[in-house]
């Protein structure tokens, strides 16, 4: 069994973003998804600081300090792009106009609770940005994260121990081991990496998982 690397995870998420989608990619791992969006699909990227139709990073020397993304990195605009102010930008989210947002996470709970903004450590300076708006705003919230912490703990948990970003807001989880839907019946495994067994995935995840057609994974 081989875990997906970060680019493979990004490519896997990108495959599920349909033509015509309005999408916000969160800071960190999700930004990699932009590099893997199929060229034959027209997909508009939203940057919450006020841009729809975001293009790739500019060539060195072409950076414009007035044209940045939510991670404050220089970007470009595609033909047809639009600028707007913050209240409009977050209205696009909160109002349910974005089709998909892809977020990183510390933990996702079996009911779709998301924790991704704060470790809760006493000396940490809290910073939330647009995370809570994104968590509740898009029609579909995809989480993209390593399945396990560096110390081997599952990031998919019965109940989040980190402070919540949003309640029951995650629709689908993409990890380096599996793709899992959050459903009213529980977490349903859609895919596993080649060589992964149901027994092994159950063991490392440590919360109940449902399997659509178990023969698919034999």
């Amino acid at each position, binding site marked *: 069994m081989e875990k997906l690397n970060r680019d493979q995870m990004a490519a896997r998420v990108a495959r599920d973003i349909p033509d015509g989608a309005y999408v916000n990619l969160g800071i960190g791992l999700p930004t990699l998804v932009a590099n893997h969006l199929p060229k034959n699909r027209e997909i508009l990227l939203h940057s919450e*600081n006020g841009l729809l139709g975001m293009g790739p990073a500019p060539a060195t020397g072409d950076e414009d300090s007035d044209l*940045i993304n939510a991670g404050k990195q220089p970007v470009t605009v595609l033909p047809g792009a639009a600028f707007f102010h913050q209240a409009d930008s977050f209205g696009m989210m909160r109002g349910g106009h974005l089709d998909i947002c892809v977020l990183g996470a510390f933990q996702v709970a079996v009911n779709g609770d998301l924790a991704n903004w704060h470790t809760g450590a006493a000396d940490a300076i809290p910073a939330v940005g*647009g995370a*809570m*708006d994104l968590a509740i*705003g898009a029609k579909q919230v995809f989480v993209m994260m390593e399945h396990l912490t560096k110390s081997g703990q599952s990031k998919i948990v019965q109940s989040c121990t980190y402070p919540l970003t*949003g309640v029951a807001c995650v629709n689908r989880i993409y990890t380096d081991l599996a793709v899992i839907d959050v459903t009213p019946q529980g977490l349903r495994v859609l895919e596993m990496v080649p060589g992964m067994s149901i027994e092994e995935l159950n063991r490392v995840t440590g919360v109940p998982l449902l399997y659509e057609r178990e023969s698919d994974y034999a």
Partner: protein
Amino acid sequence: MINKIVASVEEAVAGIPDGATVMLSGFGTAGMPSELIDALIDQGAGDLTIVNNNAGNGETGLAALLKARRVRKILCSFPRQTDSHVFDALYRAGEVELELVPQGNLAERIRAAGAGIGAFFTPTGYGTQLAEGKETRLIDGRAYVLEHPIHADYALIKAERADRWGNLVYRKTARNFGPVMATAARCTVVQVHEIVELGELDPEAIITPGIFVKRVVRVPRSSTGLRAAA
């Protein structure tokens, strides 16, 4: 005759008193009115409550205002950044108060102030630490949190171009908080790169109508011009 143009940044920030609530436009350094903030530091007002998305970058702009110990409290969504060391040190020493607000709630609370809304229910933050103690309500099966507007005494914002009536256009993602903050303060002060004659701004393209603006000062692009983003 209406003429909102003032001759200097000193004149632009004149009269801001100790204890004022001051909004500062900008997302990071994009759209931050650095020259107005420098003038505010020179002007001397202290004990300020600042509203901005962040809590300063490096040693300039809002970071310089913090470093000069003029800020009692800051409302923002994302204080912690790689170059927010001035804020970080003051916060850890307990010398600046922080009200952390999700970015969309920050924008909407500012918008609500400018639009005369008394309070509003938003789904953002429901069930999280940032909604603790706040009134909640179930509306059509969905849970919401009651949030109140953020009013300001002054807004210092950066735009690209203005006329003497205070009509404004912005530049790219430097627009960010400028248009909503302009509506939410009793006195909105704008620094622009260029002042044009009445009628030169296309009425279809004006983003902030001059009714929201009290003072405009031109700051040449040479000092706030295009920089490679950090």
